[in-house]
């Protein structure tokens, strides 16, 4: 039996299943494509610059303190892509994204505080900043995955 685009077998509809018809709505695709169009160039540039910095820059490189900051620049693009994705989201998507960001932010702050307190007793971690970043991003990412399991 043929179904008009977007329609589904009535028995499946009765059961609430969405196996027939497009899994993503046009709004989903529009949001995803816009996000990827902004996010991918920034993150690819980040990885390229990170590889360059890790392989070519060390303490003896002239202007090393500036060169090692180079990968931070494309992260501005990533931040803008995330901000714009939040703006483009519909009302429920925005709530989900903000809840997950709040979780990530909370865990980041706890990690930063832990690193700060450890620093007070001279436990200085060279990579303490990465611990804070990793904790926050991992929490945010996991929260998004869990919330999107529908």
């Amino acid at each position, binding site marked *: 039996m043929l*179904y008009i*685009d*977007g*329609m*589904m077998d*009535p028995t499946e*509809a*009765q059961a*609430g299943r*969405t196996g*027939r*018809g*497009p*899994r*993503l*709505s*046009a*709004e*989903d695709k529009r*949001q995803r494509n816009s996000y990827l169009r902004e996010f991918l160039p920034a993150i690819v540039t980040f990885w390229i610059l990170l590889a360059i910095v890790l392989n070519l820059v060390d303490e003896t490189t002239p202007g090393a303190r500036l060169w090692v900051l180079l990968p931070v620049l494309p992260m501005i693009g990533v931040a803008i892509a995330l901000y714009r994705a939040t703006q483009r*989201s*519909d*009302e*429920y*998507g925005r*709530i*989900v994204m903000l809840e997950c960001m709040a979780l990530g932010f909370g865990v980041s702050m706890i990690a930063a505080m832990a690193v700060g307190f450890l620093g007070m007793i001279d436990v200085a971690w060279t990579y303490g900043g990465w611990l804070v970043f990793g904790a926050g991003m991992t929490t945010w990412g996991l929260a998004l995955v869990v919330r*999107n399991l*529908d």
Partner: protein
Amino acid sequence: MENRLKELRAVSGWSQAHLADRLGVSRQTVNALEKGRYDPSLPLAFRLARVFSTTIEELFTPDDDDLGETDGSVTSPV
């Protein structure tokens, strides 16, 4: 808040994605609405009512908690 979205969507023979297209929202939003995990904003509730050619009151049934009253009576704001 309870709603009849899943029931009305099934009667219409639409997928969640198709309903989402008609509303201009994501499929995830439709799913959350149907499962009662999310109560829509007033503009979205009006769009839902229009899509199903019905009224908001026909679509949504508030719980006692939503009404803030346990006996269903309405008190004067003054």
